[in-house]
């Protein structure tokens, strides 16, 4: 049988280009034998043209109007033969009414990017000032799509077994100290995989890597006069395209290959890849923003509009994507499937995810169809789905985000209470207990995997700044310190910012260790902010979205200078790996499920079995009992003292074996922590002194 198809041949010529009626699915540009099939949806367009450019040319090479009979439903479709795929940039020109009150904002002057564009050119190298006079700034390109994955597939690590490491592709290796061959790129991150392995994390969560424009920030640094960037990239231009400026090979149009090579090698190292995705808004802003794509194709479909035709702004950035419109649902679903099927990513963290359960008029839906669809989709079936369960419109859903048994959440309440406890606030011990047990009060029936626990994230203070600053210091952002959160629950330990006082320095180190020790022994999924393991500082800036400089970049000299904290973190991660009782799939409830003679979780105070739940209490100990991977009895006891006094702890009796000390943040290094498996026996079998503001971790196994 011949490999040819009977529709492999053009049926007519338009402007010298051989074309035929295309196929409406899939949307976007798809390679077909001898040509490319283009398909674009627009409900309100009266006419549509395919605009073709030679790569980099200012003016189009041609415009091919879609003949009326090339429209099926509201989809314009055409196959064009004989194109030079590597040197082709394409877009659409849609004509239709400009009638904002009815939701229409057609503008026949604009060339529109394909919402399904697999690659976008125009920002090929990070930070190269664009020529704003050029028509069509972000240009859709064809991607070959082939890649030799060999046997790679998403890893399917159980969610409760993850240790997530949140990082920024550029920031991770852009600093001159990184020592990689291509700083600030996917390839640079790939070169640092040995560091991630040594640290022990098994999942990286990448801040947005969908194509965005780092130049969509017009502010300047008031001190230096330097133009600020959109460094974080929570402002998507192309949802299907990996950011070219993060690829060393962006100028060659090979960003897709470079990103795939990164995913493949991370998987080989046993490390999953989660993408931070931003479906709540786009880079098109409100009525004053640019027309890039959706706005000119089908404004009323893609955006939530007020009855007067203005943009709802639940995202705080100008517009709100109309996520539960059936067409938009399909777009989001297709996009996520693309990243899983084409790029093998392991899951997603959804920025301002509460917007995903709002209906077209902005009101929260009881059974939001998009979230349900994502939860049950065959391709996404084993992908991690993590919600930032709030939005900028006042919807706060931590603990009750519609989850269909699938969704996890960034547990903002975990962060808040852990911070308050560590700095010594009263009235926190009761809630702390619930949080370190995996927040059964919030996630009962869903298991600890629903709770992504964290102390710090990209948004807010770093861990070092959390213990070094009482207040944010965001002057460099050019908004008179008016941006960023004010409720940080931070404490500077006695001096604001950098200090040479050794006592304050020692206390800060201990406080950082305390936070990490509690985080990495809590039930749920711990998430670390990249650089916290080496005490990275942003000099008190808690909103570095615009700071493409040393404030944000990972300074690799800290790996040497802060080796003490790095070692502490590595060993905690190793301890978590070695003790399955810290990462069980179900919440501990105080029952002896494993038949070890003690309940799976129990609470203690200065005396065993006598926790102090009073508002003035600043000391709590928790004991987990169960079995290790070999089926042997295992015990982990964690005492947390946020009091400025030390206490003599009386320890609970083991159901066999003796207590060994794994970590004591009150002890000087190297006695602050031991290599898992080499913990020494306690000097006194049933007593231990816990120092002021310290955490002690003990382990007892069968011996």
């Amino acid at each position, binding site marked *: 049988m011949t490999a040819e198809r009977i529709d492999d041949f053009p049926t007519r010529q338009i402007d010298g280009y051989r074309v035929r009626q295309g196929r409406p699915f899939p949307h976007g540009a798809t390679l077909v034998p001898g040509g490319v099939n283009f398909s674009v949806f627009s409900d309100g367009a009266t006419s549509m043209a395919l605009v073709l450019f030679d790569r980099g040319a200012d003016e189009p090479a041609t415009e091919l109007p879609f003949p009326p009979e090339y429209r099926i439903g509201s989809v314009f479709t055409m196959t064009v033969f004989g194109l030079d795929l590597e040197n082709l940039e394409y877009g659409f020109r849609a004509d239709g009414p400009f009638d904002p009150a009815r939701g229409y904002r057609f503008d026949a002057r604009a060339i529109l990017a394909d919402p399904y564009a697999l690659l976008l050119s125009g920002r090929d190298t990070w930070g190269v000032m664009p020529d704003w006079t050029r028509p069509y700034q972000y240009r859709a390109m064809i991607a*070959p799509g082939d890649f030799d994955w060999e046997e790679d597939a998403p890893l399917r690590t159980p969610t409760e077994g993850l240790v997530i490491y949140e990082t920024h592709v550029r920031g991770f290796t852009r600093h001159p100290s990184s020592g990689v061959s291509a700083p600030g790129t996917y390839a640079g991150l790939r070169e640092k995989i040995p560091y991630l392995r040594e640290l022990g994390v098994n999942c990286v969560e990448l801040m947005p890597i969908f194509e965005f424009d780092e130049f969509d920030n017009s502010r300047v640094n008031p001190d230096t006069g330097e133009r600020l960037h959109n460094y974080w990239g929570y402002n998507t231009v192309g949802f299907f395209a990996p950011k070219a400026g993060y690829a060393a090979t962006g100028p060659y149009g*090979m960003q897709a290959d470079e990103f795939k*090579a990164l995913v493949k090698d991370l998987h080989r190292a046993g490390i999953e890849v989660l993408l931070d995705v931003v479906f709540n808004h786009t880079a098109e802003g409100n009525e004053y923003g640019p027309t890039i794509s959706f706005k000119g194709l089908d404004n009323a479909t893609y955006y939530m509009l007020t009855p007067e035709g203005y943009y709802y702004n639940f995202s705080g950035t100008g517009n709100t994507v109309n996520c539960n419109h059936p067409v938009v649902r399909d777009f989001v679903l297709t996009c996520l499937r693309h990243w899983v099927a084409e790029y093998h990513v392991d899951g997603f963290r959804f920025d301002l995810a509460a917007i995903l359960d709002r209906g077209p008029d902005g009101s929260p839906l009881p059974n939001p169809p998009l979230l349900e669809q994502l939860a049950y989709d065959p391709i996404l079936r084993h992908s991690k789905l993590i919600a930032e369960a709030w939005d900028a419109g006042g919807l706060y859903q931590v603990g009750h985000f519609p989850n269909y048994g699938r969704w996890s959440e960034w547990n903002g309440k975990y962060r808040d209470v852990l911070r308050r406890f560590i700095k010594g606030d009263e009235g926190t011990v009761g809630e702390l207990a619930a949080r370190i047990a995996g927040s059964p009060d919030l996630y009962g029936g869903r298991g600890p995997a629903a709770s992504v626990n964290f102390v710090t994230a990209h948004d807010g203070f770093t861990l070092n700044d959390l213990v070094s600053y009482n207040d944010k210091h965001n002057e460099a952002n050019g908004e008179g310190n008016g941006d960023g959160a004010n409720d940080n629950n931070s404490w500077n330990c006695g001096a604001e910012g950098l200090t040479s006082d050794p006592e304050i320095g020692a206390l800060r180190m201990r406080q950082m260790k305390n936070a990490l020790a509690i985080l990495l022994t809590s039930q749920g999924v711990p998430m670390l902010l990249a650089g916290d393991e080496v005490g990275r500082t942003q000099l008190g800036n808690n909103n570095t979205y615009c700071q493409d400089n040393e404030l944000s970049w990972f300074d690799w000299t800290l790996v040497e200078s802060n080796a003490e904290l790095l070692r502490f973190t590595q060993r905690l991660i190793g301890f978590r790996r070695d003790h399955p009782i810290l990462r069980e799939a179900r919440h501990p409830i105080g029952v002896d499920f494993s038949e070890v003679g003690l309940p799976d979780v129990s609470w203690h105070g200065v005396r065993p079995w006598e926790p102090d739940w009073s508002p003035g209490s600043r000391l709590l100990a928790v004991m987990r009992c169960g079995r290790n991977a070999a089926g042997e009895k295992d015990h982990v006891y964690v005492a947390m003292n946020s009091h400025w006094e030390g206490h003599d702890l009386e320890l609970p009796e083991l159901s066999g074996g003796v207590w060994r000390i794994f970590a004591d943040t009150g002890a000087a290094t190297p006695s602050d922590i031991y290599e898992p498996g080499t913990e020494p026996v306690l000097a006194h079998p049933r007593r231990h002194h816990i120092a002021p503001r310290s955490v002690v971790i003990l382990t007892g196994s069968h011996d």
Partner: protein
Amino acid sequence: MTVNVTAHTSGGVTTARIEGEITSTTASGVQERLLSLLGGAGRLLIDFSGVSYISSAGLRMLLILYRRAEQAGTGIALGGLSNEVQFVMSATGFLGFFEITDDLESETGRVRP
């Protein structure tokens, strides 16, 4: 835009020297020519020292060639790559599939059938 492939065999090693640019318009011709050399006696050494530019389509052609060689139970080695091409191949993970040689002279003697 033209590209030329010349080949010679000595000591059981076929060396193919490419001159010109390998792009989406020239890649398929180069591929055809190199494939015809794969079936010959022993391994194929491809000399890139005369290649001024290689695009994404050119690199993809090399990967296809690699897989074809593997299917045919033989191997290919690349020589004379510019630093830039080597960097692009490294950043995209393509480099890992190939045997790379810096010294074409001695390689011709070393690569055995």
